[in-house]
């Protein structure tokens, strides 16, 4: 019996569990393998929907489904949060007292947006990174906002969905124009980076659009604190700005279970091989998505692409096959830039983002992804994604004959059986 335990039921954990259940279907039914998914919540949110909730008034209910609706029947879902991961004992303990022993482990515990890390931030700022309800509070505040200064600030890096602060500024501009009060509202964007978007080529697109829409930018602004009484936000560098409404991306850190288990870095992220997605120094233990310390965007697309690599590698290891795959660092983050246009921030470990032209087609592609997200979690759209994303994985370096060959992940597994 080969026991796979997946910790975390977000995008990456859910998709990995489903892929493994699909690949190991016969073995699971034959009692030779099991896939257990441990998650805290029964509700599974589509997190990019938070922008629509905050700035377009969408209902949070529109972007939530029950986790059990999203899983293949071969996956055993355990709604009981993990509290301890013990690599030595190869065991995951849960809050409810379970002890789940594993042969293979996938850690997909995500990142936690935590406003409490900056003095005054939780009291003085709203945000769209801590859930649908908090995003809805932004929409409610906008309904009574008549004039003044709105600040969008990045209060910590790295954070989920790198384009989302820029999108928030663009969407605010759209909102106030539609209300006919844009001339009474000053929008200011505060970023720790040297430019409006960290990647230079993308900033070449964003910067002139911010200027055209009169979104004022202050770079090198590392948030130190917020004074809710004075309505001021301060930087470590010594700058301060007054706000009437503050929307800030909170600092993020790794999940409590990672910190409490002592298996993360200083910020609670798991040191992971950026190719094979194996946790450094561990055998048959993988990490994906926002939970890792890999310097790549914290986004659902990244978790999705890494899940394919991890599911393949686990099955290969079970079959004692040397044919492991490596993720190539592909990111693909859509960014709405207002006026029903969007761009896609695409890159790999070796290819930085390139020049982009905003278009309505990209905007509608982004919107359509919100509709297919749920189906994407069960793996039924992988052939389409393979065409869309192209090369995202390669044979692992130590065995690759060519790094330039596209690998079809599910190819050639044919009649192999679990060892």
């Amino acid at each position: 019996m080969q026991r796979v335990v997946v910790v975390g039921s977000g995008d990456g954990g859910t998709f990995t569990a489903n892929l493994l259940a699909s690949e190991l279907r016969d073995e699971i039914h034959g009692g030779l393998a099991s896939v257990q998914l441990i998650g805290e919540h029964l509700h599974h949110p589509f997190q990019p929907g938070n922008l629509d909730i905050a700035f377009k008034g969408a209902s949070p209910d529109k972007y939530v489904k029950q986790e059990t609706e999203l899983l293949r029947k071969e996956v055993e879902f355990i709604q009981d949060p993990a509290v301890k991961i013990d690599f030595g004992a190869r065991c995951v303990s849960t809050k409810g007292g379970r002890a789940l022993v594993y042969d293979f482990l996938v850690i997909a515990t995500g990142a936690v947006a935590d406003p409490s890390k900056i003095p005054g931030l939780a009291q003085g700022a709203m945000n769209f990174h801590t859930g649908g309800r908090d995003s809805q509070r932004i929409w409610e505040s906008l309904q009574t906002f008549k004039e003044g200064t709105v600040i969008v600030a990045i209060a910590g890096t790295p954070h989920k969905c790198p384009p989302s602060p820029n999108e928030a500024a663009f969407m605010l501009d759209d909102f106030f124009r539609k209300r006919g009060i844009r001339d009474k509202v000053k929008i200011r964007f505060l970023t720790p980076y040297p430019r409006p978007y960290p990647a230079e080529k993308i900033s070449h697109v964003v910067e002139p659009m911010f200027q055209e829409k009169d979104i004022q930018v202050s770079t090198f602004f590392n948030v130190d604190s917020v004074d809710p009484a004075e309505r001021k936000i301060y930087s470590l560098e010594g700058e301060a700005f007054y706000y009437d409404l503050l929307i800030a991306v909170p600092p993020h850190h790794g999940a409590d279970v990672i910190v409490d288990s002592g298996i993360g870095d200083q910020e609670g992220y798991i040191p992971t091989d950026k190719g094979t997605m194996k946790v450094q120094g561990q055998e048959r233990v993988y990490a994906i998505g926002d939970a890792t310390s890999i310097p790549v965007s914290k986004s659902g697309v990244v978790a999705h692409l890494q899940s394919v690599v991890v599911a393949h590698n686990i099955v290969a290891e079970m079959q004692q096959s040397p044919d492991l795959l490596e993720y190539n660092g592909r990111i693909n983050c859509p960014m709405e830039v207002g006026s029903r246009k969007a761009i896609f921030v695409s890159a790999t470990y070796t290819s930085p983002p390139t020049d982009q032209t905003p278009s309505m087609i990209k905007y509608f592609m982004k919107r359509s992804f919100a509709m297919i997200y749920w189906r994407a979690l069960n793996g039924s759209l992988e052939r389409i994604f393979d065409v869309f994303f192209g090369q995202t994985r390669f044979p692992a370096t130590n065995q690759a004959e060519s790094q330039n060959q596209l690998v079809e992940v599910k190819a050639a597994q044919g009649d192999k059986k679990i060892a």
Partner: protein
Amino acid sequence: MATVEQHKVIDSRGSFCPGPITDLFKAYRSSQLGDVIELLATDPAAKADVTAWVQKSGNELVDIIDEQGYIRIVVKITKKRS
């Protein structure tokens, strides 16, 4: 009692923009006035980014050294809100 000034070495080699400048900011956040931060980077953009940051923030750029295969940027923390 006087605090002891620290010398921190931050290795961002292999990381591309915004990796090095982000690593520098993490060190800045936990630093005190008088501390020296040495940033090692392979991304050539780190030179311009750090130079622009010290100019805006009022901190001191002590040195930029082209080592073999990487850049060593030394910054002294002389301005930070406390």
